[in-house]
């Protein structure tokens, strides 16, 4: 039982760490696209780590099937809906001409779709 608690707490810790890294990235990154890259951190390993922890906690500590299954379903929803949203935001931002830091000098979307 103590081993299970250690695993659950480790999952929470991993989730919290990546969420923190994502937030720091959102504040520090220079343009909107790079900010979105950092915020994917929070959405994937941050949320998924915490949800994996809650589902284990629900199944084995609270002995409640409902909490465990719901955590898994919420995780699946995040996995399906988050990439679609960030794809749409990135494409719309680029088409509207939102500023992009072009450090590498490699903007093949702008080259092929001049405004």
């Amino acid at each position, binding site marked *: 039982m103590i081993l299970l608690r250690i695993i659950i707490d480790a999952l929470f810790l991993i989730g919290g760490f990546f969420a923190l*890294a994502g937030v*720091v990235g959102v504040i520090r990154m*220079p343009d909107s696209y*790079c900010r979105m890259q950092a915020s994917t951190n929070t959405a994937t390993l941050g949320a998924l780590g915490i949800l994996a922890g809650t589902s284990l906690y629900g199944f084995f500590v609270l002995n409640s*099937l409902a909490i465990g299954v*719901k955590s898994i379903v919420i995780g699946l929803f995040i996995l399906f809906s988050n990439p679609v949203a960030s794809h749409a935001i990135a494409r719309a931002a680029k088409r509207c001409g939102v500023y992009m830091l072009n450090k590498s000098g490699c903007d093949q979307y702008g080259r092929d779709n001049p405004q």
Partner: protein
Amino acid sequence: MSGQRTLGFVSTFILCFITWIAFTLAFTVQEILGGLIVSFLVSLISSRFLIHEDPLYLFNPSRLLGALAYIPLFIRELVKANIDVAKRSLNPKLPINPGIVKVPTELKSEYGLAMLCNSITLTPGTISMDIVEEGGKNQIYIHWIDVQSKNPKEAGDMIKGSLESGVRRIWK
């Protein structure tokens, strides 16, 4: 309604109902009845948007095995990319080199392209922005936080890595 459309409707209905059951997990008469009505209405409206091809395409042993094998592959890539971006954003020097690259892919079917693009976006460090068809091949525009190669082929190998071969085992 043709046979294909009916089969699409039924499979969407079953998917909706399973989701409802997983979310409520209360096996009383009113919950089940409400779930049946809601999933009927939802699949009536949305089944023709969800299913364009053969609804039973995935139910084939080799494709199901491919889908199962994709899960550990994807989790490995996810953890690797997350650690990489977390290191970049916590590093005081902020070592980034952003740009947009255009990458060719061998995939043809809608579901395969959607799955590959979603996987690329979910791994931090890369966001798929658009898909165009050029010369019989689909090309994906990808915003990459650390451009290591401007050559489409090399960049494609670095970004997609083993993801594309994993997706190709499931979809065309």
